C-alpha cells in the first residue's frame, strides 16, 4: 500500500518557537497517528485521529500539542513553545479501511530544538 508523505524532513527551531509538522495521507485512510522517537529510544504513541477528531492521546500529548486536518487532506501536528526535550523524530502513521490495525509509517520529520 502507498505510504504517507511527511514534510519537512528536517526542522530546526529555537526554543519557545511554534512548529507545524505535516503529513499527507491518501484520502481513503481511516485512522491517523502521530508517534515520537527520541534519538536511540523506542517509538512512543502521541495521538490518534479518527473521523476528523482526536480519538486517543497519550500522557505525552499535553496542551503544548495539537492536531488537525485543516483542509481535509493534510494532517498536521503543532507544537507550541517548543522545548529542548521536544527534539526527536516525529512519525505520522495511517491505517487503511481493510485492515484497521495495520499501521504504515511515514519517513518522519527530524525536529531539532536549539
Amino acid at each position, binding site marked *: 500500500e502507498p505510504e504517507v508523505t511527511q514534510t519537512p524532513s528536517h526542522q530546526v527551531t529555537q526554543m519557545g518557537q511554534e512548529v507545524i509538522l505535516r503529513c499527507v495521507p491518501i484520502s481513503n485512510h481511516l*485512522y491517523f497517528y502521530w508517534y515520537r522517537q527520541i534519538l536511540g529510544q*523506542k*517509538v512512543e504513541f502521541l495521538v490518534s485521529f479518527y473521523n476528523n477528531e482526536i480519538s486517543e492521546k497519550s500522557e505525552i500529548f499535553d496542551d503544548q500539542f495539537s492536531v488537525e486536518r485543516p483542509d481535509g487532506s493534510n494532517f498536521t501536528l503543532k507544537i507550541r513553545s517548543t522545548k529542548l526535550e521536544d527534539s526527536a523524530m516525529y*512519525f505520522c502513521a495511517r*491505517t487503511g479501511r481493510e485492515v*484497521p*490495525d495495520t*499501521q*504504515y509509517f511515514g519517513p*518522519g520529520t527530524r525536529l531539532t530544538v536549539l
Partner: protein
Amino acid sequence: QQQVKQSPQSLIVQKGGIPIINCAYENTAFDYFPWYQQFPGKGPALLIAIRPDVSEKKEGRFTISFNKSAKQFSLHIMDSQPGDSATYFCAASKAEETSGSRLTFGEGTQLTVNP
C-alpha cells in the same frame, strides 16, 4: 500494564545465522503483534505481524512464534544477511473501532549481521 519488554538490546550474528529477538507483554487485551524494521534516519517499516489465534507465522525468511499463555512472542530471521542489519521493534495493540489501535513498542534490538 501497557508495557512491552524486548530483549536483547543488541545482537551480533554471522551471515547465515538465525538471530532471535524476544518480546513479552502484560496486557492480555492486546490482539495484534507486529514487528517493525528500522534503518537509521528512516521510519519503521512493517515486517510481519501475528494475531493470538495462531502460534506461528512465516513470511519469507521471517518467522514469528507466539506463546499466548506465556504472553511472549519472538522474531526469527532465517539465513540472515548483512542487509538485515537494522533496529527491530516489536509492538502490540488492541484495535478499537472508534479510536484505532495505538501501538505500544518494545525498546528495540539493534541487529548486526557480519559478512
